[in-house]
């Protein structure tokens, strides 16, 4: 008998993932344990309005689903590590002039690390299952991370950080399903989460405005500074560099007769650099913190395709290893606004190879 921790957020995807595991548990001899993670304080009324995964409503929904599918259910408090590894890292990313990727950090440090370890120690559970749209396949003695069957929902962009040890203990019951199929299953099982709307925003920034969070976590309220164009000419004033993100168009208060976008954020001089559409695109960029799902790169130099944002277009590229930690990525067609801090995730067809975080251009 194997015990599996089903991470349940209170959303439809993780509800169905847990339900599917529970359905087959009888015949496989598995024991499914529903776990809801409290990741940040729910903060009362304001948050309750949100679709955040840590609202009291989310907890109630996850518990109801666990009751209906007949599995034990526990709430696990991971506020401390989530606060440090995800929320603080998110704030620090902005303060470093980058665009952090908290969902990826949460997968790397919380769901597929601390939850795995706590689940193993506390529940004797050797595996974690989530409602991610992705697939794991064991082949030739290795675990491969593959795109979901539903290309629209594929979440490998947030999962490239997983290594062999983690994938060996990971299950994605939704990997072969499409979102409409998942909703249909939820409706058939009469799960209370069947019609829940998608959560799009960052779970701990419910209103979508992270500026308040920078003030709360890091005391950053922002000093006004210059907005400059490519030539260094001052064209406007910003409210604080960390309030801006590469590729951003709105809220610049700059009228130059054509659309302009944030091209670069310079923390040291509190400067925001803007550019026209073509100036924000790039043919090559570097990534840092490289990781490969297989544990090693396909080669010193190899062809792949790269995605630099979730659901973003994929571009054919040539990848070259640089030093111990970096990759140089040269794309066939220029990509729009590679933002430092965001993941650059590499694929070979269906397979996610790994990737890194887009580095600041020197």
């Amino acid at each position, binding site marked *: 008998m194997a*015990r599996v921790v089903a991470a349940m957020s209170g959303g439809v995807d993780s509800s169905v993932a847990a339900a599917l595991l529970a359905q087959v548990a009888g015949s496989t001899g598995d*024991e499914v*344990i529903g776990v809801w993670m*409290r990741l940040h304080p729910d903060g009362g009324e304001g948050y309750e309005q949100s679709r955040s995964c840590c609202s009291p409503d989310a*907890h109630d929904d996850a518990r109801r689903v666990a009751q209906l599918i007949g599995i*034990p259910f*526990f*709430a*696990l*408090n991971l*506020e*401390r590590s989530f606060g440090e590894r995800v929320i603080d890292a998110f704030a620090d990313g902005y303060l470093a002039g980058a665009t952090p990727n908290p969902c990826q950090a949460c997968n790397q440090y919380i769901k597929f*690390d601390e939850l*795995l*370890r*706590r689940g*193993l*120690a*506390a*529940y*004797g559970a*050797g595996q974690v299952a989530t409602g991610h749209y992705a697939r794991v396949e064991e082949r030739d*003695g*290795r*675990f491969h991370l593959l795109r979901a069957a539903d290309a629209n929902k594929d979440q490998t962009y947030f999962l490239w950080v997983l*290594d*062999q*040890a*983690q994938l*060996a*203990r990971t299950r994605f019951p939704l990997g072969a399903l499409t979102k409409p199929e998942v909703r249909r299953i939820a409706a058939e099982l009469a799960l209370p989460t069947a019609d829940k709307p998608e959560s799009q925003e960052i779970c701990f920034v419910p209103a979508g405005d992270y500026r308040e969070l920078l003030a709360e976590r890091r005391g950053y309220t922002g000093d006004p500074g210059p907005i400059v164009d490519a030539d260094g000419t001052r064209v406007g004033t910003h409210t604080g560099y960390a309030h801006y993100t590469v590729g951003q168009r709105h809220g610049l208060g700059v009228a130059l007769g054509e659309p302009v976008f944030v091209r670069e954020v310079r923390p040291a001089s509190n400067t925001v650099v803007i550019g026209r559409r073509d100036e924000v695109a790039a043919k090559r960029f570097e990534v840092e913190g490289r990781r490969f799902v297989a544990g090693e790169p396909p080669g010193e130099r190899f062809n792949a395709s790269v995605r630099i944002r979730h659901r973003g277009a994929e571009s054919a590229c040539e990848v070259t290893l640089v030093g111990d930690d970096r990759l140089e990525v040269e794309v066939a067609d220029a990509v729009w606004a590679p933002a430092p801090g965001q993941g650059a995730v590499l694929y070979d067809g269906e397979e996610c190879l790994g990737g890194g975080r887009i580095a600041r251009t020197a």
Partner: protein
Amino acid sequence: MSIYLDHAATTPLREEVLAAMSPYLTEHFGNPSSLHATGRRARQGLDEARESVAAILGAKPREVVFTSGGSESDNLAIKGAAWAASARGRHIVTSSIEHKAVLHTCAILERSGFEVTYLPVDRYGRVDPAELDAAINEHTTLVSIMYANNEVGTIQPIAEIGAICRQRGVLFHTDAVQAGGFLPLDVDRIGVDLLSLGAHKLYGPEGDGALFVRQGTSLLPQVQGGSQERQRRAGTENVAGITGLARALELAQAEPASRDAENARLASLRDRLFSGVRDLPGVEPTGHPVERLPHNASILVDGVEGGDLVAALDLEGVEASTGSACTTGSAEPSHVLLSMGFEPERAHGALRLTAGRGTTVDEVERAVAIIRTVVRRMRDPMPARPEVASA
């Protein structure tokens, strides 16, 4: 079948209690305030229950107010007495290890301008009567100190505290919800003016409680409406539940000799639990070594999260708690253990095992074996990364 070691959270309903309640859920359904025969029959049940509870407390029937449970009794006692006496003074003395039904009630009074002194406790969770004496001033109207603690089981020097309150002319309330099934409840002997009880801690139903209110004690009612309970608590009485409370209390307390025999049996189970786990490295009993409830074995386990431990034990068939059923899922360590001087890091590892009428020696032995296995497993240095199975 799981081994239930969480009797401080709640207890199963005794068959005799269910039998006593049953007629009032069926044929004697009347409203005790109705004038007709059906109403009068319900009223008879209510009157008998009140007499029975009063007899156990050594009180007059009119001094017993029925409520929806321990929390409501605490609220009515503290808010009711504090407001009624507020023209004379607005200072309350309580302890830092009270149940939240007391602490949060005091906190809401603070927001209305009352001053509250929270007495510290020693390493075992005991209040020092001398400190209480020193904390009472000319504005003090009420002292609220629990009889026995719900998390660590420590019993307070309640008679001494009562004597001080009487001597200083202040009202004394005690939350006896946890003590109700085990300790003498004679209100004159322990010297209380207000005493809270809850039925479901002593094999009665959930949702029923009582408050002893010494005659002559003014209370501002917290539920306004009809004139039930001598205008101290409005609302049609839950006759079946009240009958259940009365029967449960009678079964627990009417025969002091059988109560003491059951206490002794429970204490030996408790001591087996303690001695079965205390040699594990990093395990420490909490609460007073002697002055403690007979069924409560509470411990700290270093290096584990109490919530994880409880979940792990549940999966292996032992039902326990971290210390209080009311704070499950909270990131905050127990305020009781912090007040007793334990470091927050250690206080996270709290486990409360509470035996009950149905608990057997065999169950305790099996539970000990399971606890030892689970604690060892959780103590194993956690792998930084789970090992790969084959690669």
